[in-house]
C-alpha cells in the first residue's frame, strides 16, 4: 500500500540574520508585530511590514515608541495572538516596565534585542553583547525570564521558533538576544516546511467560564489562558493578583503567586537550558561563548587543534536560566575556561559563579564595537 507523502516545501534563501528572525516568527505562527524602527534591528520590522498584511489576520503596526510597541504586543497576546516585537539597546531599555508587566500577567510573547554598542546611543551600527545582564535583570521586581541567543543565520530562524514555543509553553515573555554581526550577516538558510517543525501554542481553558480560575496553579505551574473575547471575562492586572486575577495583598496569596512564577520555569531547566558542544570530549581548554563570538571561537578551536592543543567549545544557546550543568562539567574537566565576549564580563560572571574557584577562568573582553577575532581567542587558548 503506497502511502501518499506530501512533498515537503522547503525554501532556500540568502538572508540576513534579521530576515531569518522574521521567517522564523512567521513559521512559528506569529500573526502580530508592533514595533519602532531602531538600528540594527530594523530589517525584522521591514520584513514583517511586507509579509504580515499578506497573511490571513496578520497584523503589523508601527507604534510611536518602544513603550507603545511593547504595550500593543502584550495587548495582542492577551487577545490570543502570537505576538512579537524587535528592538535594540535603547528601545529595550524603554520596554523594561512592560516586560515586567508581561511576566506578571504571564503574557506569552517574544522580544528580539539586536545588541549594539552602548551605553546610551553608543555605537548604533556596531556589535556588542552588553545587554546580557539587562535581559535578565532589566525590569524591576523579582521574576524568572528566558533569554536565548543565536550565532548564525539559520540559528536565528530556529531560535525564533524556539522562543515562540517557550513563550507559549511557559506563558512568559522570551527574549532573543542577537548581536549586530549575526543580525547583519547574510547566509544561506533553509526555511523548513511548516509540517516539519514542532509548533507549540498556549493551553486554553476547557472548563465553563464560571469555573475558570485564570491564575490557578497546575502541575506544570502554567495556567490555561483565555483570549479576550472568548467568553471568559477575566481581569488582567499588573498588581499582584490571586488565582481569580483580582489584586491581592494577602501575604499567603502573594507568596503563592510569586513562587508559582518561579516554579513554572525552575522545574523545566532541563528543557530550557540549551547549549552546543564542539570537541569537548577530551578538551583541556574550553571556550564558553555565545552569539557571533561563538563563530570566532569555533575557528579558533579548529586552529588550536591543528596546532595540537586540546581545545573545545561550549556555545550557549540559552543564556538564562544559565546552563549551569553544562558549564559546571567543563570546570571539573578543563584546566582553563576562556570566556570571550563583547562586553566587560557579563557572562563570565556567571561562569565564575558556577566555577566557584575550581579552575582558571580567562576572559577576553572588547567594548570597541569590533567582533572578537579568532586569533585573539587562539592566543588565549594556547
Amino acid at each position, binding site marked *: 500500500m503506497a502511502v501518499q507523502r506530501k512533498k515537503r516545501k522547503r525554501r532556500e534563501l540568502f538572508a540576513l540574520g534579521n530576515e531569518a528572525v522574521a521567517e522564523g516568527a512567521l513559521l512559528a505562527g506569529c500573526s502580530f508585530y*508592533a514595533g519602532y524602527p531602531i538600528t540594527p534591528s530594523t530589517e525584522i520590522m521591514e520584513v514583517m511590514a511586507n509579509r504580515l*498584511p499578506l497573511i490571513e489576520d496578520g497584523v503589523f*503596526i508601527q507604534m510611536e515608541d518602544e513603550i507603545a510597541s511593547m504595550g500593543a504586543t502584550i495587548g495582542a497576546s492577551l487577545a490570543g495572538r502570537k505576538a512579537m516585537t524587535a528592538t535594540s539597546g535603547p528601545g529595550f531599555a524603554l520596554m523594561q516596565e512592560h516586560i515586567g508587566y508581561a511576566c506578571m500577567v504571564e503574557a506569552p510573547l517574544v522580544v528580539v534585542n539586536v545588541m549594539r554598542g552602548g551605553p546610551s546611543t553608543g555605537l548604533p551600527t556596531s556589535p556588542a553583547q552588553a545587554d546580557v545582564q539587562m535581559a535578565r535583570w532589566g525590569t524591576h521586581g523579582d521574576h524568572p525570564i528566558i533569554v536565548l541567543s543565536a550565532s548564525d543565520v539559520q540559528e536565528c530562524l530556529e531560535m525564533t521558533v524556539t522562543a515562540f514555543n517557550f513563550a507559549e509553553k511557559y506563558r512568559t515573555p522570551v527574549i532573543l538576544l542577537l548581536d549586530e554581526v549575526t543580525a547583519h550577516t547574510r547566509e544561506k538558510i533553509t526555511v523548513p516546511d511548516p509540517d516539519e517543525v514542532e509548533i507549540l501554542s498556549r493551553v486554553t481553558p476547557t472548563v465553563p467560564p464560571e469555573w475558570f480560575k485564570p491564575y490557578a496553579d497546575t502541575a506544570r505551574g502554567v495556567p490555561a489562558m483565555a483570549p479576550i*473575547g472568548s467568553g471568559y471575562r477575566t*481581569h488582567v492586572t*499588573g498588581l499582584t493578583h490571586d488565582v481569580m486575577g483580582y489584586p491581592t495583598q494577602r501575604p499567603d496569596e502573594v507568596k503563592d503567586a510569586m513562587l508559582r512564577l518561579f516554579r513554572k520555569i525552575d522545574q523545566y531547566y532541563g528543557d530550557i537550558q540549551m547549549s552546543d558542544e564542539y570537541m569537548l570530549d577530551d578538551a583541556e581548554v574550553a571556550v564558553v561563548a555565545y552569539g557571533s563570538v561563538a563563530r570566532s571561537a569555533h575557528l579558533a578551536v579548529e586552529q588550536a587543534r591543528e596546532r595540537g592543543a586540546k581545545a573545545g567549545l561550549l556555545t550557549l544557546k540559552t543564556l538564562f536560566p544559565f546552563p549551569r550543568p553544562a558549564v559546571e562539567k567543563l570546570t571539573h574537566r578543563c584546566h582553563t575556561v576562556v570566556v570571550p565576549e563583547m562586553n566587560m564580563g557579563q557572562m563570565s560572571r556567571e561562569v565564575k559563579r558556577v566555577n566557584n574557584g575550581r579552575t582558571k577562568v580567562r576572559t577576553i573582553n572588547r567594548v570597541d564595537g569590533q567582533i572578537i577575532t579568532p586569533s585573539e581567542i587562539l592566543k588565549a587558548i594556547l
Partner: protein
Amino acid sequence: MADVTQLIHDYLRHNKKFPHVFCAGCGHGIVLGSLIRSVHALGLPKDDVVLVAGIGCSGRMAVYVDFNTVHTTHGRALTFATGIKMANPRLKVICVMGDGDAMSIGGNHLIHAARRNIGVTALILNNQIYGMTGGQCSSATPQGDISMTTPFGSLEKAFDIVDMCKAAGASYVARGTSFHAIQLDRLISSAIMHPGFSVVEVFSPCPTQYGRKNKFRNAVDMYKWLKSNTVKVETLKDPTQKPDDGRIPIGVFRDVEEPGLEERYFELQRKLMGQNR
C-alpha cells in the same frame, strides 16, 4: 428610572469588595454608572466589551465591572488597547484613563492614538489632580491651583484635552461632567459606537485631594460649581470660541465619520490578498 441601579448591579462583579475604592463624592463612580448604562443601552454583550484602564484612581474602575478588563501600566493603557483592537477588531475597546495618566505620562500615546484614528474609545476622567498618590499637580491642574507639589500655586497652564485631541486628529471629541449624567450617557454611547478614535473628557470631581486644597468645602460644592460653571456647547453663539465668562463648554466638539485604523488596515489586507490569489 426604575431599573437604573438594578441594571448596574447586573454588570458589577459582586465577588469584589464593595463599596468600591473611590472616596465619598468622587465622580468616578458616576462615570462608571454612566458607562454601564451606555453599554446596556447599546445592547452590547459583555464578552465583546474590553475595558482597559491605566494606573491611578480611574485605573481601579476596571476591576469592578464584568467585562473583559485589563488594568495596565501608568499612561500606557492606549497602547494595550491598540494591540487588542488590532488583534480582534470585533471587540469594543474602551480605555479609561485619568488626566495624569492620559495627558502627562501618556500624552504621546494619546496624540498618536488620535492621529491614527484607532477604533478605541478613550474616557479621560479629569479630576485635575493625581488622586491615588495623594494629590500632586497634574498636567490638567488649573494654573494657580494648589496641590501637594504646587503648594504655592501651579505655575504651568493646564492642558485643554478637547483642543488637543481635536488638533491631533481624533474623529469624535466630547466633554461631559459627572454632574450631567444623562448627557454623559449620551456622549459615551455615541463615542462607543463611533467608528474611529473617540475621546470623552469627563470632569469628575476629586473632593478629597483637589477640592479640599482649593477652597471647596465638600463634594457637594464641587458639583454645584460644575453645574454653574459649565455651558452646553450647542447653546453658545460661536461654538468654536471659548465663552468670555470662563465657563467650560460641554457637549460634542467634533463628530466626523472616518474609518478607524483597523478598518483601513483590514480593507488594505483584503485588497492585497485578493491580488495575491
